[in-house]
């Protein structure tokens, strides 16, 4: 078989396969770029509309770059509704919940991954089981409980509800499992107790997982809509998502202002995403593949 191929055949084969490759690559790029455009156009439209005059937002033919930039739109939104207060509330909630989540779930995950105790498997099953139960199933009992505690319409209610989610424990445990036990045994022989092992070995090693959990929790709290919708009724505790919806309902015809407010609500997440993209993707891979 090999003898029958002469040099020319091989050359021809190479040329045709490289043409095929170029064609294939072009096709892949074309499809991916067209898709990217669909992904990104709504955001560009938002950006463009936010700088336009009200009457120009829907004008046809459509222009991407407004004739004059209406920077004033970005001033107006802060005055129409207490957007600054809402932003502050959202930052406060996101930071506190993320901090508590990191602390308690990495602590608990250490016990689940590396310590032996009676009832470990059963308890872990409870944690996993509740991940699969839709939150809406128990939102009413949670609401009633919070009302009994007099915590409705306070930030504490959402903090208590969202700081101890089983998801965090699950994610951290998956990561801890990949740290070899021999390392911990060696530390135990050296006389370190479990707390020292946790703080001196596990915590420094688990930075990537902690980073993943941080951004997941932060983005979740930042974007959460249903939780604040149920618990927060007065303006002084509302979050940015509720504010945005309030804005949409009250000024439903102020299209450019709505777009400006939407854009402002997206910016923190965008910055976080661009800076820590790697950890988002690693976090998903950790829970997805090993789970």
């Amino acid at each position, binding site marked *: 078989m090999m003898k029958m191929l002469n040099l020319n055949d091989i050359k021809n084969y190479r040329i045709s396969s490289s043409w095929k490759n170029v064609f294939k690559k072009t096709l*892949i790029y074309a499809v*991916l770029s067209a*898709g*990217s455009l*669909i*992904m*990104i156009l709504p955001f560009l439209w938002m950006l463009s509309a936010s700088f336009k005059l009200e009457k120009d*937002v*829907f004008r046809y033919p*459509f222009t991407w770059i407004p004739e004059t930039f209406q920077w004033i739109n970005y001033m107006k939104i802060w005055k129409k509704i207490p957007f600054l207060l809402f932003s502050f509330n959202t930052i406060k909630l996101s930071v506190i919940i993320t901090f508590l989540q990191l*602390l*308690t*779930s990495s*602590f*608990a995950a*250490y*016990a689940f991954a590396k*310590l032996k*105790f009676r009832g470990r498997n059963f*308890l872990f099953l*409870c944690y996993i089981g*509740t991940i*699969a139960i*839709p939150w*809406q*199933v*128990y*939102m*009413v*009992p*949670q609401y*009633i*409980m919070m*009302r009994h505690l007099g915590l409705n319409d306070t930030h504490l209610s959402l903090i*208590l509800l969202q700081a*101890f989610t089983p998801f965090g*424990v699950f994610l951290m445990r998956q990561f801890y499992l990949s740290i070899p036990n021999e390392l911990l045994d060696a530390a135990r022989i050296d006389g370190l*107790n*479990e*707390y020292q092992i*946790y703080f001196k070995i596990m915590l420094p090693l688990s930075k990537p997982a902690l980073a993943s959990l941080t951004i997941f929790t932060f*983005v979740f709290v930042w*974007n959460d*809509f*249903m939780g604040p919708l*149920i618990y927060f009724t007065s303006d002084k505790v509302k979050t940015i*998502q509720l504010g*945005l919806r309030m804005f*949409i309902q009250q000024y439903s015809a102020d299209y450019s202002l*709505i*777009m400006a407010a*939407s854009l402002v*609500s997206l910016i923190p*997440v*965008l910055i976080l995403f661009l800076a820590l*993209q790697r950890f988002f*993707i690693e976090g*998903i*891979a950790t829970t*997805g593949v090993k789970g």
Partner: protein
Amino acid sequence: MNKKGNTSLLYNKRLVAYSFLLPNFIGFAVFTLIPVVFALALSLMNWDGANEITFAGLKNFRELISDETFRISLLNTFYYSAGTVPLTIICSLGLALLLNQPIKGRNAIRAVYFFPYVASLVAVAVVWNMILNPTMGPVNEILQKVFHIAKPPRWSASVDWAMPTVIIVSIWKNMGYYMIIYLAGLQGIPRELYEAAKVDGAGNLQCFFRITLPMLTPSTFFVSIMLTISCFKIFDLIFVMTGGGPGRATNVLVVHAYNVAFKNFNFGYSSAISLVLFIIVLCITIIQFRMEKKWVSYF
């Protein structure tokens, strides 16, 4: 003496483990585990939040049968899931396959597809509603003036198109997440398999159907379960984009449960609706796990 020392050591070990667990467990037990158990009980009660709780037996569940909005919501939830689950799987798998090729700018492209997933739902819903505005929106302008379609769809404002519109936006928003899971799955397939297949004379298509797809079945299994659960829980997107309307065209189970609880203050009945939701999700998940052996292959 020795034995006693051992048991106290064991006891100590257990105490240490519990001390690690406790801060999280208390919060988890009080605010998640107890409400889950309580939800079960509440579905058997009558309660408006102000008056006494009374035992209702199965009354709430009997009421469900004659509740037309419940029936519509249930069908809408199935409609939404039947549209979203397969299409999201196809889109995210296709994307992952393309992105798994050696191309330049991979990370940037991946970021573009993933960003809608982390973007705020309220902002995304409002911008899509504007782009798809039936009379003024750019999409319909283009359909009318460039493609000369006299009557373009009225998107989220029409009874027939509202659900497809929500499905499209949902796929657009979430496919980046599932794409990442598929990409991780693809990277776990050993290259030698393809090399061996090529030596044996297999073409690209054969490689795809005989190697890629079977090797990805664990990822597909995980994605289909996650997607199904999240589809049955759908709330935010619909609440902000259509509010369940027009009419009841996009009223799904959770929107119904929300309205019953927080607008009509019928907490018992709302819990019954949620419980039905849970039972459906549970059944589908169990069926998926049962069928796992038939099509999922772990290597």
